[in-house]
C-alpha cells in the first residue's frame, strides 16, 4: 500500500496576542508525524483541548502551519488556504455540518461552488455531477432546490458529505461527523462512509469521542494530548493494551459504559 499523505514535523503555535492586559494563552501543536495510506481509516481521539480539530484544520489547509510539511502523493503540497491541490484532494467535513451550509443558498448552489471554482466543466455537466453525488449520498435529485432550514440534521450531514465528495478527493478529513446524530442515522452514515470508502478508495481521517464507532470503523488510532500525539497504533492493539495514561483513561471510561456481560 502506497503512502498517500505524509505529514512530517508539523508544528503550529497559537498565541492570543490581541489582549495585552491578559497573559497570552499559548497553545502549541506538534511536532506531528503522520502517514496515511490509500483506503485507510484513521481515528483521532483525545480529550477536549487536545488539538484534534486544529490538526484536522491544518491537514486540509484551513490554517497555515508554522513549520513542517505535508506531502500528497510524494508531492510537496504548499500550505495555507487556496492551494488548489489540497482543496482538490483533501476535503473536510465540519463539526457542525449545519453551520457549514450557507442559509441563503439552495443545496444545488452550495454543491456547485467547489465544481465552479476547481473544475472546467460547463453548467450542464456540473448540474449532472451535483445530481450524481446527491444520489450517491442517499438524497434525491429534488434536494437541489432545498434550503438549509428544510433539511434535517442527518440530511445536512449528507449534504456536507456530498460537498466533500464532489471533487472526488483522495483523503476525507472529518471533525466529529457523528456527534449530533441519533443512533440510527449515525449508523446509516457510518455504513454510507464505509461503502463509499470501498467504492472510491478514500482515506478517511476522523475525530470522534465515540469509541464504539472508532473501534468499528478505524484501522488505526491516534491519541492526542496537549497538542502531542502520545500514542498511535492498530485499533485492536490500542483497545486491548493501552500504554499511555490518557489512552488508559479513555479506554477504561469507554469499557465502563459497555456492559461486560452480554445478554443471553
Amino acid at each position, binding site marked *: 500500500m502506497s503512502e498517500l499523505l505524509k505529514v512530517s514535523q508539523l508544528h503550529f503555535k497559537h498565541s492570543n496576542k490581541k489582549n495585552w492586559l491578559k497573559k497570552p494563552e499559548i497553545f502549541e501543536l506538534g511536532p506531528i508525524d503522520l502517514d496515511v495510506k490509500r483506503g485507510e481509516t484513521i481515528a483521532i481521539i483525545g480529550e477536549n483541548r487536545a488539538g484534534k480539530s486544529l490538526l484536522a484544520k491544518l491537514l*486540509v*489547509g*484551513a490554517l497555515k502551519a508554522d513549520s513542517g510539511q505535508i506531502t500528497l502523493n510524494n508531492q510537496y503540497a504548499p500550505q495555507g*488556504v*487556496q492551494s*488548489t491541490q489540497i*482543496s482538490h484532494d483533501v*476535503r*473536510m467535513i*465540519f463539526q*457542525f455540518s449545519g*453551520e*457549514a*451550509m*450557507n*442559509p*441563503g*443558498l*439552495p443545496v444545488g*448552489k*452550495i454543491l456547485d*461552488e*467547489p465544481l465552479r*471554482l*476547481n473544475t472546467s466543466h460547463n453548467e450542464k455537466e456540473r448540474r449532472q455531477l451535483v445530481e450524481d453525488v446527491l444520489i450517491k449520498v442517499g438524497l434525491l435529485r429534488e434536494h437541489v*432546490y*432545498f*434550503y438549509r*432550514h*428544510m433539511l434535517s440534521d442527518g440530511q445536512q450531514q449528507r449534504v456536507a458529505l456530498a*460537498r466533500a465528495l464532489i471533487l472526488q478527493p483522495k483523503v476525507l478529513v472529518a471533525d466529529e461527523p457523528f456527534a449530533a446524530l441519533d443512533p440510527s442515522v449515525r449508523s446509516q452514515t457510518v455504513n454510507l462512509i464505509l461503502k463509499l470508502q470501498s467504492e472510491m478508495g478514500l482515506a478517511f481521517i476522523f475525530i470522534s469521542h465515540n469509541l464504539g464507532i472508532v473501534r468499528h470503523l478505524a484501522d488505526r488510532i491516534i491519541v492526542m494530548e496537549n497538542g502531542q500525539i502520545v500514542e498511535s497504533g492498530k485499533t485492536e492493539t490500542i483497545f486491548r493494551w493501552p500504554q499511555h495514561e490518557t489512552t488508559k483513561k479513555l479506554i477504561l471510561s469507554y469499557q465502563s459504559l459497555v456492559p461486560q456481560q452480554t445478554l443471553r
Partner: protein
Amino acid sequence: MAQFSLYQEEFHPSPWQKTWREFRSSHIASLGLMILIFFLIFAIFAPLLAPYDPLQQNVNALFIPPSWNVNGTISHLFGTDALGRDLFSRIVYGCRVTLGSSILLVLLAMIVGVAIGTIAGMLQGVRSSVVNHLFDALMAIPTLLIAIVIVAILGTGLVNSMWAITLALTPQFVHHTRSLVRTEMKKEYVLASKLDGANHFQLFFYSILPNMIEMLVVQGTIALSIAVIDVSALGFLNLGARPPLPELGAMLADGMEVAYAAPWTVALPGLTIFLIVLAINIVGDGLRSALRKRLTQ
C-alpha cells in the same frame, strides 16, 4: 383493494417566498405597500397621469379650490395655486422629484456604503477600523448643516442637496455592512468556501451577499424615509430644489405665503409627504418582522 400511488405534494418555499407570505399576513404592512406602490406609479408614470403641465401658469384660474369644495371644478381635481398651476399635476410630478431623487440617493449611498463596509469587514485590525470610521465625522454633523455647507460652496439646487443627503446616509450603511461581513466571515460556511478556493470577491458575491440582502432591505427602507424627509425639508428651507420645480417641500414653502387664503396649497403637499413617509416606515417595519419570523420555523 387497489393499490394507490400516493405522491407527497409538499411545497417548500424559498426564504424569499416565506418572507413574502409573512409580510402579506400583516394587513397593515400590505396596506402600506399598496400606498407605496401607488406613489411609485405616480413617480414613474407622472407624464401620463398628470392632466396639465406642472409649470404651466393660468391667469384665468387662480386659487380654484379642490373639486370637493362647492366652488371647485372637476377640471382641477386638487384646485390651483397662486399662479394658477394645477395642484394635482404638481403633486404627481412632486412624487417623481421627491420620491425618485430619494430612491436614487439611497441606492447610491447603499452601493458606496456596502463597498466601503465590505472592504472594512474583510481587512483586519487598524486598517479595518480606519476604513470603517472614514465617514464617521459626517455623522456628527446634521444633514441640514452639511447641506448648508455644500450649498454655500456649490450653490443651491436639488442635485447639491442630494449629494449632502447621500453623504449623510453613507456611514450607517458602512457600519452595518462591516459588522455583518465580520460576523459572516467567522462562520463555517465561509471557511468551507475558502477551502474550495474562493477568493475574496467570490466569497463576497456567492457566500455573504445572499445573507446580506435582508439587512440591505431593512436599512434601505429606514434610509429612504429619512431621505424623503430631508429632501423635502431642504426644499422647504429653499436650500434644495428651487420653487418652480414641483418638489413637495418647495411647494409647501410656496403655499405658506397664502395659507390663509388657500389652505389646500399647504395641506395637500404636506399630506402627500406624510403618506409617503408613513408608507415607507410601515413597509420597513413589516419587512423587519417578516424577516425575523422567517427564521423561526
